[in-house]
Each structure stands twice: as structure tokens, then as C-alpha cells.
């Protein structure tokens, strides 16, 4: 393509990769690239008001679309601000390419202005990272960065580019393919292992599909729905897999884990065969490991071999892409006796009737669970729901009727407060026609509230539904249960005027204290072309239940009041 500067090469690569939106924040070391961004029209650039938000926005974009998200930051503090974003994406295996400026090559190692060892800092929170050494290797590095980010188990990749390399001029030819002899992901599962696993499924009495975020990442939801349907094996979803089977699917028991529902956690405790698809046995899912799926053999399908056998012993390890493995399984399951699992399904149904996912509604005050259910009724299948981290996140995961993958966007692995709002911006940029609601809390929202300005400037009308209990609610809940109600630094009674705050940044504010106000606010907000804060005052001391205390066995759940009276536990 001829002679051009390193900065131009960066822009050309972004265009060649089909990226339409880049999120970022300029600064000294990345200025040449921004100068090229100014001149080009191949992609749009969104100026967030903090680098962390840029990476989260690119992350939200990636989660909503399945494509690689791109963020751009400068050296030093620009990069360090981006680290939380990288770590968030890393823990949830989200494909990102983050491009950071670096001080000129000649200054590296001299403690120059805004110099920090970006590859050193980001090593444990990226899938891979590059410090570009020369202009000649820049096109190859960019190509490899995108390839590594999206292939295998996806993840964020950092490309750190010294300023002089963005200035230098050289020959640009974007490679059409990559050749990394040391990196060859395994997609196809071992045929013999798959065969054995299928046999085990046919012979099981109480099998259970344990569905994780890998199914979303692999775009395998349709196949997994087919698998469930064909075998009539009941299923549980992790936090990251909400929407894979769809809320209406009768085989779906719900979410399992620390805040899983009764039937899901009991199913995992009593099953004789766990069929794990793209899940990684996180401690928030398993509870006490020695009691987890104690009576079961385990089939573990994962594209990352290191996940297999990391926490539990696996009887049928299958390294491969969920799509390819399930595709191989399906024909072998022809004629499977689905009646075989009828008794098991009945037991689980009975469990769900005993202790359904429930809460006590109120006419006095808005219950946060009601608010979630209500948006489910009003926007349901169409909306994209992002969330921050805390009680609101769990209520959303428990009560929203997620119907499709990529409808639910949250920071599961790292648990990053402040993720939801910028991620919502990314999702809305990807799907402008969809309603995007960030379910958040009065704690989390303040951690990236500067994005009000971004959203207002670019007219990105996302709805921030603040479930306001004037507490850091999840920590408060633990203090109630485990710290004798000593509410150390969790009382958030001192608050901004949310409506005025939103309005001062060019958005809309709604103060909501009744169900009528709630309906009116959400219906109005959906029609607006402006970002909004919906300040929903909810019951202060509402708890997220059921709850498995940290380190406890999954079947030892604290259950909501109402169900305790009727049930046996």
C-alpha cells in the first residue's frame, strides 16, 4: 500500500480489521496517531472522559457484538488508567486490542516523562502484549494482536508503541495471514473423548448441563439449545451465560452459585454427571469444592486446557471449541432415551416449586427485584442490559428474563465497579436501535460517572437505572450477616443530587420513589435521545437471596423469608 507513517499504519490496520468504533483518550505519546485519526474517516473515535471508561466501552462493544473492541490511550497515566479495563476483559476472556503510546524508543528506561513499563504492568492481565521495537514489525504486530485477541480463548492484547515509531515512515503492507508457530489453538475436540462423553450422557441418571460464558464467546448458544432440547437434560447457567438457553426454556433451572436459585444449586449437588460447557468452576459457582457435585462424574469442555483439572478432577476432559464439540456430539445423541431423565426432571421441578426465585413485594417502597422484573416486562427481549457490580448485578442476573446471548453484559470474573456505564456506551454504539439499560447502584455509578459527559456529547442515550439503597449494598449485606451489623464505610447516605448531576452534564434525571413514577420514567427515558440517570429509591436493607456463604457447600443456602415458611429447609 506504499509509504506511510507508523501512526497511519495503526489507522489502516484498524480499518482493515473492520473496526467501526474506537474508544480512547489522547496524550503526548499517542498524538501522532490521533493526528492521523483526525485526517481519516474509516472509523469513528469516541472521546471518553477517562481511559478506564475507554477500555470498558470497547469491552462492552466487544461483548455486544462478538467482534474485537479497540481502545487507544497514551503512555504513563493513560495506560495505568486502562489497566482495570484490561484486567476486566482478561478475566472474562473478552477480545480487545488496546493501543498505548509509549515514550520514544531512545527514552525507554530513563524514567522519562509519562514513562511506565506498560508491558511489565499488563503482563498478568492481558492474553499477550507487545512493545513494538521497530517500524518494520509494526504491521505484523498489529495483525497478530487482532488474531491473538479473537482466536482460541479470547482476551485483551496490548500493543505499546513508542512515539518515534508512530512518526517514522516506511513501507506498509498489512499481512493477510499470521504465522505464529508457538500459538496454535485447539478447536476440534478429541473424537474418542467426545464419544466417551456421549456414552456417559446416555448412561447417566441425573445429568446436568453446566453452561458457562464460553458458550457465549463461541457463539454456540443455538447448538447448546439444540443439545438441551434433544437430550432433555436440565441445565444451569453461570452468571456469564445468562441468556444462552433463554428464560422461557423449561429445561433451564436458573443461575447457580453463591446467589443461585435453590433448584440450580440442589441440581448441582445431586447430579451424577456434570456436562460443563465453557465454564471454569469459579469459587463463586462451586462453593466448598469438596462438596461440589460430590456424586458426579464430570465432562469438561473448554478451549483452554489449563481450565481443565484446575479446580476439580475431570473424568472426561475435552479441549476444544464449544461449537465444534457440540456439533460433533449432536449426531451421536440420536435416539437418546429422554424419558430416562424424567424422574430427575420431576425432582428438580419439585425443588423449584418448594423454593422458587422469589421476594416479598411491597406497596410502600420499590423493591429492587420488582424494578428488574418491571424492565423485563417493559423492554424484555429487545434491550441490552449492562450492570455494575454488587447487589443490583445479582438481582438483574436472577430476575431479568434474558432471552438471548450477548443481551447481558457484566463484569463477572474481576467484578469491576464502574464497568456498567461505559460498557453500555459501547453496546449502544454497536446497536443504536436497541434500548440499553445499565442496571447500577448508588456506589458503582459514581466510579465512572464522568461518562455522562461522553454520552451527552455523542448523544448516546443509555439509561442508567440506579437502584439506590444509600448503601454499598453487597458489602452491607455481608456486614449484616457476618460482621454483626457493623456498617464500616458502607453507608452512602451522603449523595449527590442525581437529577441535577445528570442535567448539569447534558443528560436527563428522574427521581423515582413509586411504581407509577418508575413506569413513567422508564417509558419516557426510552423515547429520549439523551443519556439519563434514573434514581430509583429502593428498600434500604433488601438482601440478595438465596445466598451460599463464602466457602460453604452449595446446598447450604440462606433462603428468602417467605419460602422458608412453606419449605422444608
Amino acid at each position, binding site marked *: 500500500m506504499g509509504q506511510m507513517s507508523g501512526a497511519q499504519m495503526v489507522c489502516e490496520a484498524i480499518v482493515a480489521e473492520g473496526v467501526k468504533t474506537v474508544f480512547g483518550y489522547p496524550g503526548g505519546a499517542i498524538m501522532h496517531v490521533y493526528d492521523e485519526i483526525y485526517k481519516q474517516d474509516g472509523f469513528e473515535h469516541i472521546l471518553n472522559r477517562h481511559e478506564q471508561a475507554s477500555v470498558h466501552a470497547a469491552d462492552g462493544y466487544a461483548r455486544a457484538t462478538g467482534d474485537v473492541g479497540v481502545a487507544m490511550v497514551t503512555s504513563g497515566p493513560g495506560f495505568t488508567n486502562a489497566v482495570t479495563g484490561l484486567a476486566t476483559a482478561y478475566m472474562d476472556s473478552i477480545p480487545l486490542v488496546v493501543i498505548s503510546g509509549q515514550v520514544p524508543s531512545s527514552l525507554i528506561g530513563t524514567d522519562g516523562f509519562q514513562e511506565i513499563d506498560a*508491558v*511489565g504492568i499488563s*503482563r*498478568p492481565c492481558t*492474553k*499477550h502484549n507487545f*512493545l513494538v*521495537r521497530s517500524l518494520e514489525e509494526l504491521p505484523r504486530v498489529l495483525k497478530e494482536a487482532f488474531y*491473538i485477541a479473537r482466536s482460541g480463548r479470547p482476551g485483551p492484547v496490548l500493543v505499546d508503541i513508542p512515539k518515534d515509531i508512530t512518526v517514522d515512515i516506511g513501507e506498509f503492507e498489512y499481512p493477510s495471514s499470521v504465522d*505464529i*508457530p*508457538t*500459538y496454535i489453538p485447539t478447536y476440534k475436540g478429541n473424537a474418542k473423548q467426545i464419544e466417551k462423553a456421549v456414552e456417559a450422557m446416555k448412561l447417566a441418571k441425573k445429568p446436568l448441563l453446566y453452561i458457562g460464558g464460553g458458550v457465549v464467546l463461541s457463539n454456540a448458544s443455538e447448538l447448546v439449545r439444540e443439545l438441551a432440547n434433544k437430550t432433555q437434560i436440565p441445565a444451569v447457567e453461570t452468571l456469564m451465560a445468562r441468556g444462552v438457553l433463554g428464560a422461557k426454556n423449561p429445561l433451564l433451572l436458573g443461575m447457580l452459585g453463591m446467589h443461585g436459585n435453590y433448584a440450580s444449586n440442589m441440581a448441582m449437588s445431586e447430579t451424577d454427571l456434570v456436562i460443563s460447557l465453557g465454564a471454569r468452576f469459579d469459587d463463586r459457582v462451586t462453593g466448598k*469444592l*469438596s462438596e*461440589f457435585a*460430590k*456424586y*458426579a*462424574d464430570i465432562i469438561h469442555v473448554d478451549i*483452554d*486446557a*489449563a481450565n481443565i*483439572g*484446575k479446580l*476439580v*478432577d475431570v*473424568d472426561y476432559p475435552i479441549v476444544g471449541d464449544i461449537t465444534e464439540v457440540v456439533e460433533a456430539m449432536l449426531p451421536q445423541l440420536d435416539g437418546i432415551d429422554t424419558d430416562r431423565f424424567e424422574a430427575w426432571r420431576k425432582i428438580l421441578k419439585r425443588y423449584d416449586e418448594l423454593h422458587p426465585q422469589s421476594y416479598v413485594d411491597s406497596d410502600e417502597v420499590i423493591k429492587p427485584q420488582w424494578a428488574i422484573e418491571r424492565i423485563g416486562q417493559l423492554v424484555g427481549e429487545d434491550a441490552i442490559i449492562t450492570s455494575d457490580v454488587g447487589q443490583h448485578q445479582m438481582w438483574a442476573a436472577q430476575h431479568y428474563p434474558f432471552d438471548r446471548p450477548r443481551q447481558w453484559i457484566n463484569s463477572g470474573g474481576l467484578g469491576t465497579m464502574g464497568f456498567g456505564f461505559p460498557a453500555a456506551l459501547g453496546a449502544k454504539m454497536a446497536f443504536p436501535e436497541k434500548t440499553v439499560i445499565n442496571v447500577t447502584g448508588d456506589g458503582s455509578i459514581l466510579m465512572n460517572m464522568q461518562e455522562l459527559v461522553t454520552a451527552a456529547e455523542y448523544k448516546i442515550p443509555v439509561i442508567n437505572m440506579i437502584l439506590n439503597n444509600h448503601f454499598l449494598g453487597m458489602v452491607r449485606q455481608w456486614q449484616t450477616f457476618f460482621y454483626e451489623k457493623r456498617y464500616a464505610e458502607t453507608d452512602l447516605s451522603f449523595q449527590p443530587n442525581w437529577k441535577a448531576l445528570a442535567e448539569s452534564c447534558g443528560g436527563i434525571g428522574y427521581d423515582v420513589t413509586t411504581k407509577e413514577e418508575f413506569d413513567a420514567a422508564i417509558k419516557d427515558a426510552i423515547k429520549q435521545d439523551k443519556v439519563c440517570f434514573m434514581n430509583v429509591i429502593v428498600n434500604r436493607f433488601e438482601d440478595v437471596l438465596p445466598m451460599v456463604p463464602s466457602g460453604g457447600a452449595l446446598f447450604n443456602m440462606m433462603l428468602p423469608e417467605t419460602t422458608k415458611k412453606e419449605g422444608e429447609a
Partner: protein
Amino acid sequence: MQKSLDETLNERRVISVIVMNESSVLSRITALFAGRGYNIESLTVAPIPNSDMSHVTIATNGSTRVIEQITKQLHKLIPVYKVIEHEEMIEKEMVLAKFPIGESLADISVLASAYNGGIANVGKDMIIVMVTDEPKRIKHFIEAAQRYNPCEIVRGGVVAIER
């Protein structure tokens, strides 16, 4: 159906890692060990002749599950080409030791040759010996050498090759 491997069993393992010979590859490996809490007993690295790869030899220890994780996590690093968990191997370590010239040259020479070594240098004030042997025997050599008042002992780390 046993839910956890024996976590208490601590075994010593030697792992060879074949990596692309590029900058920061060694820090990726050591950072992985540090970040995930694995032990490094010894680590050696050198380029493989006539290739763009390097051979890293790591002696480590841990439970079966930890050793398995080390292997898998190493393999996940992008510049890592191959990870060999040695079973049947020849394992050697080199050591250099410096003794005062006043000690018995003959005794030290015999000791060194008993451990596959010899005198490497004799200077005005010091004798330097070099020994290459299995790590276990190197330990014995160092114990035995104590009676000759060594001034300095430098161990080279383990290298291994599959039989």
C-alpha cells in the same frame, strides 16, 4: 469421583520450555511463576543452536495438580513452543568452587574428580574447581567441600535432556 488430588504430595519436577528467542520471554515465564505462586528451584536459559528458539530448564516442586497447572499455564504463553515435563531424563548441574591456595591441592583435585570435575584454574591465592553432576550429588559435593574452607561456591542451575 475423588474430588481432589492429594494436595500434600510435593514432588520435584524438571520442566523444559522451548520458547521463541524474543525479548521479555523470560520475564513472562518468571512472572507466571510469581503471579500464580509456583516455586522455582532453579532456572537456566540458553539459545538453541541454529534456531530462533531458546531452551529454558526449570526445576520446580508442587503437588500433582500444581505441576499440571504449571505445564498448562506455561503452554498458554504465546511465545512458548513446547513444554516437556521430564520423566526419564539425564539431569546435570554445574558448580564452580573457589578454595584458598593453602588447602591441599591433591585432596581437592581428587574430590572434584569424584564428582565428574577437576581443577579449572590455579592462581596465586586461589584454586578454582569445576564439577558437573546430578543435582543430588552436587549437594553432596558441596557438603564434602566444606572441610577445605571454600571461599565461594556458585551453582549453575539444572539442565536436563530426555533419555
